[in-house]
């Protein structure tokens, strides 16, 4: 089955092509467009599931299959030479080698000459350096377009197509009535294709294509409502910010190709394993490569300092926010870091950088999220914060856990974004939480599914977020890869508390408490938009603003919903603008919207069981290959053993060169248990690739409590307690005593203002960078308009003047001479030549005859001369 994976990216592309190229021309109905888009993704999801199943679990589970590459099939549908050999030749330092060879030969010549001349060795001899031709090694960069199926890409395939399918279905309901329906789904399908190319490509260049492609689609979809200025601005901001990251990524890819002579993952990582480790203080080749890659990951995955685009990206339609800016695209950085974990793990410095940046981003974004009022903004900062958690996991060496959090986060954050979309839809495009409240009664499905997402992100026990977040915190505390793991643990724990707090706040402000949506606008961002629209005299939902989507232009106090509508029954077709505008009475969304919510809610509840913490299952990752940590072992490099796979498994053949001959799973589990016990026996004996990394909180706890399991349980309890504290504070502030937020906002006014204004980061960038770039652009423009245009215009003036002069010369002098001569000849010859034209046929005939005679005479001229001579001979002279 997995031989069909080349269809997985192709199907959404096909759907997008049909919708995009024909949707408008043939006036496809919304049903048809939605059917094509959803159908193509559903089919891709089906193929992915079957492929992953047959790859990982079919055909004897004893051995880990090798990474499956479609190029192994050969033939066009599977793969083709994308950049054939010869397009780029790798020099591999041939010029230097030739030079060295020449010098060596010169040395030999000198020695020989010295020997011939019987000079003592070492005496100076004058010899020429022979020029050695550069050796052609035939090392050509050969890049094929092929898809790779291995544990890592399998997970991403499933997440992208599976969560994507839910979001596609949701979008058919959410985008109902939008005039750009076909365009939206064309972009969305194109995005799916690019994302799948990113995660399924078998080399860095394909990853780069997907990387740029998802950036493009993100740009297109953020700016989907291009008639609104903030959407256009946000899309450009996202694009430009991503360019900065892509710059680093591209440099790293160049470096990788130059270093390893290939872009293929398998080749690169196999070679990279052999490089020496670079502890802190050494910043060698691997560190530079990792730095470039991480800059790229920062841009795409919204880490400090390049996170600023993600909150603004909420200007796009909500399904886009869910798909691109929560579940899939922003995790591309995680994918890339995990994919290149061999390179990252070679550099202790870069691991520390990744972890620190991740932890800082987590707390930074979480504290901003506390004070935001736009429901999507809160979720956006939450996403940034959760991405920080994932990078923290990668930085402390727990790449599998990072990917685990990607998966659970995709479930619950997509769920929450879609829930927010449902709320926005039900509230008639109201995004300000201050104007919501009490929606529980009106939107039961949305409410209950949202609760699942809330508990999951807060980290409450059996919900999915708990498993991954707890593992991240544990790994941060117990890391032996980098120093100061306990500081990172502390930061992340505080961030987790903030997460629980702001998510509780979000739920409370949206679904519980007083119903505020009937109140008059009381100021704030959303109301500015209202007032602005009022000033412009625009009606909401009319032809002009039908596409204004998530931030419509209502008149203040205008009725935007049906008054006498049965609230719970309002699940039918809800055509915007088709009905009279009533009060702001929210309504439940249609089934096409809440069914995906329900599916995602189930996933958010049970999704965490794919990676149950070892503490719960007796010290090993339970479930064999079905456990995500075990599943990902073949792609995770172990710096201690230098092999792929965990320390004990790697030696049994999970390395890249021996992935075909994997170890029996049962054995690996057994050895896993054994290893756990070993590390319990003595934490100091645990192999640390970079040596002692100072104080280790987990090991200290182990010593204090006497057992490894007890230490793990301690951390689990701590993380549950902080989640409880966060939720409790949220309930206290926003349910029990709604006056408290204002009181504390006044009491902590400077902190509150800083958080509310997002620490003025945008302003800082504006002051530090944008202003200067704009000034430079103006300078360049001035040079262009004054200098270059002036030069061009001056040249043009010069040319025109010169042509005027030469034109006059031509007209008066040259033409004068020609005409003068012609007139002179005419006047001179006219009386003579006109005589020839008598008009009498006989004259012309005479001329003809004369000509004939002359011709004959000329023809026989020799005979004629003879004749004349013979006749002259008769004449007596």
């Amino acid at each position: 089955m997995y031989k069909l994976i080349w269809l997985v990216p192709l199907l959404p592309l096909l759907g997008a092509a049909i919708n995009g190229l024909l949707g408008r021309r043939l006036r496809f109905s919304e049903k048809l467009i939605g059917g094509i888009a959803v159908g193509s993704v559903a089919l891709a999801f089906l193929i992915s599931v079957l492929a992953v199943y047959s790859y990982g679990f079919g055909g004897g589970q004893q051995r880990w299959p090798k990474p499956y590459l479609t190029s192994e099939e050969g033939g066009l549908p599977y793969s083709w030479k994308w950049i054939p050999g010869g397009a780029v030749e790798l020099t591999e330092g041939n010029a230097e080698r030739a030079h060295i060879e020449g010098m060596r030969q010169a040395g030999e010549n000198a020695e020989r000459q010295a020997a011939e001349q019987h000079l003592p060795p070492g005496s100076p001899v004058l010899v020429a350096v022979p020029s050695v031709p550069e050796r052609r090694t035939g090392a050509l960069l050969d890049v094929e377009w092929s898809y790779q199926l291995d544990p890592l890409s399998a997970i991403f395939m499933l997440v992208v197509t599976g969560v994507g399918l839910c979001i596609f279905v949701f979008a058919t309901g959410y985008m109902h009535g939008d005039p750009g329906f076909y365009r939206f789904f064309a972009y969305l399908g194109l995005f799916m294709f690019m994302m799948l190319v990113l995660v399924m490509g078998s080399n860095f260049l394909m990853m780069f294509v997907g990387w740029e492609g998802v950036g493009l689609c993100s740009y297109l979809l953020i700016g989907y409502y291009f008639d609104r200025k903030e959407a256009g601005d946000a899309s450009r901001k996202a694009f430009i910010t991503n360019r900065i990251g892509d710059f680093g990524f591209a440099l790293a890819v160049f470096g990788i190709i130059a270093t390893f002579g290939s872009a293929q993952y398998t080749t690169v990582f196999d070679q990279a394993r052999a490089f020496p480790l670079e502890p802190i203080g050494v910043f060698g080749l691997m560190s530079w490569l990792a730095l470039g890659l991480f800059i790229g990951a920062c841009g795409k995955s919204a880490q400090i300092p390049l996170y600023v685009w993600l909150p603004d990206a909420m200007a796009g339609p909500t399904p886009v926010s869910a798909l691109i800016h929560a579940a899939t695209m922003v995790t591309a950085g995680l994918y890339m870091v995990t994919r290149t974990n061999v390179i990252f793990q070679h550099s202790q410095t870069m691991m520390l950088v990744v972890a620190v940046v991740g932890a800082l981003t987590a707390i930074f974004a979480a504290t901003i999220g506390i004070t935001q009022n736009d429901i999507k903004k809160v979720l956006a900062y939450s996403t940034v914060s959760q991405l920080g958690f994932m990078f923290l996991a990668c930085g402390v060496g727990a790449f599998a856990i990072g990917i685990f959090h990607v998966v659970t986060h995709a479930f619950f954050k997509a769920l929450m974004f879609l829930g927010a979309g449902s709320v926005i839809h039900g509230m008639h495009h109201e995004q300000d939480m201050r104007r919501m409240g009490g929606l529980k009664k009106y939107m039961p499905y949305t409410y209950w599914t949202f609760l699942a997402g809330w508990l999951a992100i807060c980290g409450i026990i059996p919900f999915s977020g708990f498993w991954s977040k707890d593992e991240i915190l544990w790994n941060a505390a117990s890391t032996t890869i980098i120093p100061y793991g306990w500081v990172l643990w502390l930061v992340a724990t505080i961030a987790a508390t903030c997460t629980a707090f702001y998510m509780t706040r979000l739920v409370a402000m949206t679904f519980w408490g007083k119903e505020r949506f009937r109140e008059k606008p009381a100021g704030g961002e959303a109301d500015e938009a209202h007032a602005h629209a009022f000033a412009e005299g625009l009606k909401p939902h009319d032809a002009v603003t039908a596409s204004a989507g998530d931030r419509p232009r209502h008149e203040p106090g205008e009725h935007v919903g049906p008054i006498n509508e049965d609230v719970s029954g309002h699940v039918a077709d809800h055509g915007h603008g088709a009905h009279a505008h009533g009060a702001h009475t929210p309504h439940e969304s249609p089934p096409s919207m809440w069914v995906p919510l329900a599916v995602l809610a189930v996933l958010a509840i049970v999704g965490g069981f794919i990676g149950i913490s070892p503490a719960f299952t007796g010290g090993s990752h339970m479930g064999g290959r079905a456990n995500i940590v075990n599943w990902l072992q073949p792609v995770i490099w172990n710096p201690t053993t230098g092999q792929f796979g965990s320390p004990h498994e790697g030696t049994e053949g999970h390395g890249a060169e021996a992935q075909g001959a994997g170890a029996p799973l049962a054995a690996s589990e057994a050895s896993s248990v054994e290893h756990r016990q070993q590390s319990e026996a003595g934490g100091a004996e645990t192999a640390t690739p970079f040596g002692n990394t100072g104080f280790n909180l987990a090991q200290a706890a182990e010593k204090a409590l006497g057992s490894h399991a007890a230490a793990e349980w301690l951390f689990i309890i701590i993380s549950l307690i902080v989640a409880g504290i966060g939720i409790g504070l949220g309930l206290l502030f926003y349910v029990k005593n709604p006056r408290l937020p204002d009181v504390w906002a006044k009491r902590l006014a400077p902190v509150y203002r800083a958080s509310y204004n997002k620490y003025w980061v945008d302003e800082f960038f504006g002051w530090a960078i944008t202003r200067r770039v704009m000034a430079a652009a103006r300078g360049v423009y001035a040079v262009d308009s004054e200098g270059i245009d002036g030069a061009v215009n001056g040249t043009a003036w010069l040319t025109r003047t010169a042509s005027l002069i030469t034109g006059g010369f031509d007209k008066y002098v040259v033409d004068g001479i020609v005409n003068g001569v012609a007139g002179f000849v005419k006047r001179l010859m006219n009386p003579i030549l006109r005589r020839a034209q008598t008009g009498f046929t006989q004259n012309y005939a005479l001329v003809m005859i004369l000509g004939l005679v002359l011709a004959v005479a000329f023809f026989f001229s020799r005979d004629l001369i003879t004749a004349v001579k013979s006749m002259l001979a008769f004449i007596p002279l």
Partner: protein
Amino acid sequence: MLNLLFPALAFFWQTGTGGRMSDVGNSVTHPDLSKFLVIGALLFIIGVAGVLTRRNIIVIFMSIELILNAANINFIAFSRYLQDMGNVNAVAGQVFTVFIIVVAAAEAAIGLGIVIALYRNKETIWVDEIDLLKW
């Protein structure tokens, strides 16, 4: 060749040698072309002179017929000459003569038609009064 250039002179020059055949070396008789060619040349010259000098367009026509017939005589003469030399199949010249006569008849018919049309328009058949080709 001399007789080509000075036909009249050559004609009188040759009158002494009588007969269609001439003896060369008194042993073998050869057919003698020169008399016929001289006649043809004379006819041609008369025709040309007529075309160039006569004013009556009908007479010019007659002169053209003379030119054509000069050619006919040459054709016939050469045809017979070749037959006498032993090539009994050399009849192309005679065939051409028949063609020329036919073409001449057709040409005369068209020409006279043109003349009549001309006369109806210009009321004259004197060519020096017809100078429509003048500039």
